[in-house]
């Protein structure tokens, strides 16, 4: 996984866990919430981006690494605050573009030179300048597919269900509210401690998020 710098300690947490159910054991074996539904994490709600980013920074400094912010629009400072600054998407797009360009050119080369050489106006079979426009279009086409599909795959979308949707007020994450989550499978996560800590972050309210 080249997604993140391995030296960054968050690297292995970069993708949100596709199988959140194993967190259940984590939460219960720590002796909290026995008998309650499995815990995904603890969520704090904020009503402006400044508070959210400040809280995210403090949470990161506190040592939590499996944290995530949710906001109605992209906030550059937020992904920095949760320690997520790298993505391999540009590399994927570059590879897509190179493959598209080579594929586009050699498709024409193979068809016009090898498979069915046809004399058109006395031009050479490999009349490469005439192949450039289509080569260019194929480059852009494949690179664009790489950008869109790469983004969706790295983000693990489409994903119709996710535990955060259970949180109260979370529907406002697409309107005007901001959320910060410490996930239950964070190595240093302890339920009460985490709740206590999040209450000091200046949010509106703090809630458990169940799976």
């Amino acid at each position, binding site marked *: 996984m080249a997604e993140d710098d391995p030296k960054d300690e968050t690297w292995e947490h970069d993708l949100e866990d596709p199988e959140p159910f194993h967190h259940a054991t984590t939460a219960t074996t720590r002796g909290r919430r026995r008998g309650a539904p499995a815990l995904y994490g603890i969520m704090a709600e904020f009503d*402006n981006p400044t508070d959210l980013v400040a809280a995210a920074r403090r949470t990161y400094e506190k040592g939590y690494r499996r944290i995530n*912010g949710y906001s109605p*629009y992209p906030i550059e400072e937020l992904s920095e605050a949760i320690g997520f600054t790298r993505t391999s998407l540009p590399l994927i797009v570059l590879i897509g573009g190179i493959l598209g360009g080579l594929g586009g050119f050699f498709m024409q080369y193979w068809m016009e030179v090898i498979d069915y050489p046809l004399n058109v106006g006395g031009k050479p079979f490999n009349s490469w300048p005439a192949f450039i426009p289509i080569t260019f279009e194929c480059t852009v086409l494949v690179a664009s597919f790489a950008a*869109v599909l790469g983004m969706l795959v790295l983000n693990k979308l489409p994903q119709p269900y996710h535990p955060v949707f259970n949180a109260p007020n979370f529907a406002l994450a697409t309107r005007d509210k901001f959320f910060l989550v410490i996930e239950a499978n964070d190595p240093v996560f302890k339920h009460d401690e985490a709740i206590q800590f999040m209450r000091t972050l200046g949010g509106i309210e703090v809630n458990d998020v169940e799976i």
Partner: protein
Amino acid sequence: MPTEPHNEGHIHTTAPVVAPGLTFASVTDKISSIVLKRKTPIWWFAGFAISFVLFQLMLLTITKLVFEGIGLWGVNIPVAWGMDILNFVWWIGIGHAGTLISAILLLLRQQWRTSINRFAEAMTLFAVAQAGMYPIMHLGRPWLAYWLFPYPNTMGIWPQFRSPLMWDVFAVSTYATVSAMFWFVGLIPDFATLRDRARSKPFQIVYGMLALGWRGSARHWHRYEMAYLLLAGLATPLVLSVHTIVSFDFAAGIMPGWHATIFPPYFVAGAIYAGFAMVLLLTIPLRKVYGLENFITMRHMHNMAKVMLATGLIVAYGYVMEAFFGWYSGNKYERYMIWNRMHGPYAYYYWALILCNIITPQFLWIKKIRANLLVLWVIAIVVSIGMWLERFVIVVTSLHRDFLPSSWGMYQPSMWDWTMFIGTIGFFFTLLFLFLRFLPMISIFEMRTILPEAEVEE
């Protein structure tokens, strides 16, 4: 996403990009309510009905065309291209403003693009759909259009890749695909907003599926922003390449008046010119009827008028150079071509074109005229007509009198040429009305980024 300080207002005009006093909540509610809550206004039904009826004209024409062949249209030797190609170029040119606004202005960090880019991209997509129809119908046997693509076939042959017409196939289909992806990616977060705002189950389900489970995660946004930026970077050379290749359809031929190196830049400028005229033509009434003056401000109107003026001047330069080339080439065919344009049987079209495309936009130098929306709207219509005339002049005057006087002829569009053209206008507006009703016409999440409260204070 550009979130630089809002201090650039005084450089351009005093009008702000968004009206003061808007909040995340009010922006979200206002734009999403157009889709979700507000009763569909009566004029929407009227407009949709009219467009849909006109759209039937297109279907009727296509049906008749499939039965009878393209003799239905006025095209014949020597003018074999006629309205089909000129309408193709006209529609695809209109589409270019959408990509310019969504991609090039994004890279140039022009914040004012934010409230018009969604709408302009939709316009691009719908215009490209109309454009694509013409060359396919013009094939004569449109049901064999897939022959244009290189696929392994029992005939054992391949397309002829040295032909600009093949380049066109790749350019236009790539352009349509990339525009559609760019548009859809831009819509994902807004689909999530609609999913969370929708009250009725069917809307929740449909928007929920389209939103792909978007939840505004910071990690997602980070990759999303990167993908969006990269797509803009890819779409920028793409849009320039598309109209360049469209101009190669002409410039690679040896017809007098076509075989000129100025064609690519002149066509691209013309496309942006026509496209901005169409954006103005549509946004001026829309912002009024939907009450979006707070989002699409006078700043937008001034800027779009200025872009129109600038590209109009480039186009004017193109016309002057065409005349100059005709004279300076010393080639009698080139000279006759330009003389024939100015004094031949289609001279009215040429002078009407000069009036529409060169003289009329000069009024845009005057600030008062840019501020008068009615006048601006009329100028936009005049420019749209002018750009249609430009393609008519380029296609028809070169073809109808070329090298050999014995093969000269005249071109007269038939009734079915007009029904096809009016039909595509109907189809365009049908799609546009559906878009206005079911999708947010302004990018909600991008509007949030340019609000003052979006800034993180350190």
